[in-house]
């Protein structure tokens, strides 16, 4: 961690919230995976398993009027539930239903303007350009809003990322460049695609403070995120937070699980799974007397019940079935 940056200590309530959101996020990701395999999800799904801690740490303490660009892995569901978005209409959207947040038109390009989650783009790295605009608008308003800009190591190959870093630092915008580095972009290894081991090295060239944290440790992630959020709220400008995380599954369901052009090894999988984020967090909350085993079981049960309701909402909704004329009338706003 950059020594110039402050540190923070999490309260008991913050730890419980993080653990709860981590459990919820993990169950949500597994539900999405299961539904894709059951043919109950439209399009594709990019599983988040193994990499669920960064989104929880980044988003659990955002306000409703803070901007969020969720990482595409998990299709943003972990980030959004952590921020407090009711994702019933997200799953309905992802199943093509008329109750979907985008009226069933978008497949997975969800948007929740009331939570300042404006878009999911089909272009990797297309979070970086509007991030400048969100940051600029937040700074102009001067109400202490921040922009949590989450994306993966692969997205930092885009020139847009570099433009965004440049302009955010130039104008001291309240942006957190939150890089979830799982070392994989589809098949491509970050080691091969980036010249330095830390993506956050980029920040140095712009004079932007940066932190590298263990992305498997939700508490460590949250501590770093809170420091960055606090800097942004106080008008001190952008911070780069890089989380070293994992991706247990293939890129999206159905693609082979390669690194480069070769199958990822059993050893790599074993090493990854030794650092499964929910297991690590469970050990920690038990060891630190944050939660009891019974409370932990309750948290799991509540998460599963919540997800059942979300699925029921989607399943009980009708397939969106507008006429071509109705769709044509929606191309332009009044």
């Amino acid at each position, binding site marked *: 961690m950059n020594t110039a940056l402050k540190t923070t200590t999490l309260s008991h309530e913050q730890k419980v919230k993080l653990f709860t959101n981590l459990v919820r996020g993990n169950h949500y990701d597994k539900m999405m995976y299961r539904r894709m395999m059951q043919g109950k999800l439209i399009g594709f799904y990019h599983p988040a398993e193994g990499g669920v801690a960064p989104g929880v740490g980044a988003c659990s303490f955002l306000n409703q009027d803070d901007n969020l660009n969720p990482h595409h892995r998990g299709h943003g569901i972990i980030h959004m539930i952590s921020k407090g978005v009711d994702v019933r209409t997200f799953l309905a959207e992802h199943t093509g239903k008329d109750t979907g947040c985008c009226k069933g038109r978008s497949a997975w390009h969800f*948007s929740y*303007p009331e939570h300042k989650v*404006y878009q999911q783009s089909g272009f990797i790295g297309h979070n*970086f350009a509007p991030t400048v605009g969100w940051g600029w608008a*937040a700074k102009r308003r001067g109400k202490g809003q921040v922009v949590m800009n989450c994306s993966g190591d692969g997205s930092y190959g885009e020139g847009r990322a570099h433009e965004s870093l440049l*302009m955010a630092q130039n104008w001291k915008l309240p942006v957190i460049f939150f890089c979830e580095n799982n070392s994989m972009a589809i098949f491509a290894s970050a080691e091969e695609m980036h010249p330095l081991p830390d993506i956050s090295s980029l920040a140095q060239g712009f004079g932007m403070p940066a932190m590298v944290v263990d992305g498997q440790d939700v508490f460590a992630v949250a501590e770093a995120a809170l420091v960055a959020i606090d800097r942004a709220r106080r008008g001190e400008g952008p911070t780069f937070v890089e989380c070293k995380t994992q991706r247990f599954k293939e890129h999206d369901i159905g693609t082979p699980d390669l690194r480069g052009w070769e199958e990822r090894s059993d050893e790599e999988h074993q090493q990854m799974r030794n650092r499964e984020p929910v297991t690590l967090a469970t050990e920690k909350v038990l060891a630190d007397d944050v939660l009891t085993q019974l409370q932990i079981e309750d948290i799991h049960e509540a998460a599963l019940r919540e997800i059942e309701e979300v699925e029921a909402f989607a399943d009980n909704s009708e397939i969106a079935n507008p006429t071509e004329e109705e769709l044509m009338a*929606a*191309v332009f706003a009044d």
Partner: protein
Amino acid sequence: MRTLTLIDAIKEAYQEELRRDDDVFMVGQDIRGGIFPHTKGLVEEFGSDRILDTPIAESGMYGVALGAAQEGMRPIVDFMFGGFSYVTFSECSVTTGQYHFLHGSQRALPITMTAGVGTGQRLANDHAMSIHGTFAHHPGIKVAMPSTPYDAKGMFKAAIRDNNPVMIPWHMGIMMLKGEVPEEDYVVPLGVADIKREGTDVTVLANSLQLQNALKVADKLHGEGISCEVIDPRSFVPFDLETVLRSLEKTNRLVVVDEDWESGSFANTVSAKVMEQGFDLLDAPVTRVTLPDMPVPGGYMEDYIAPNVNKIEAAIRSVLARIAA
């Protein structure tokens, strides 16, 4: 009435809208210094926060507009030259055009985009290309281009007030064209064509510099007893086909002048629509005057290939030479 150049008429539209609405602001590169005169001096009245210069980073620059529009503001983006918009095309065309529709009509993007376009400066392809046809091809963006100073002020004001993204380039070849411009507030609605000259023998659809060229040809042919009706589409999206079809009821002949490459052009769209919806009105095939399918050459060669008064005159004579069946 007072006269202004086209470029000053555009500037007056900016000034009035910036004064009227605090959410309106401009973003571009070197717009404070006035790289083209439509932004010159604006910073003195409105400050660097509303006349915003960015680094040479088109995606980031457009991102200011995109993000701010999602936040409810009304940005005007100046790309300087039209070709530069392609540097951030996925944002300014694809993402922007799909935004309102795909995201369930939850939020509109009131972004105005502009840039200088067109032949005449001998600057070659990337500095001379037209962009209206390309933007018109991508659904969800309104596209318009003014041909007179009067229209320039009214159409730019309409674009800025529109809740949708609007691409409204201006042609460098008529930048200094003078015309009457009222001092008061008015808008020229997007999607309404304008009959710039009434006639009975042939309809010429042309815009911007080529509209001015078509008017010159119409003047010349008038001396020979040939009566040209010259229509300015003003907007490409939405396109006012009705006005063209009504004109064809009279003239039965159509020449479309479009300073864009032949393939995939607005001229082709008009030709197809007229064929489908006005076939019985035609006494001759729709004839197009466009740029040939080659990169626009620089230097003097530009003069050989760009639409001009001679090519427009030849096209008019060719459709008139056809005998009605």
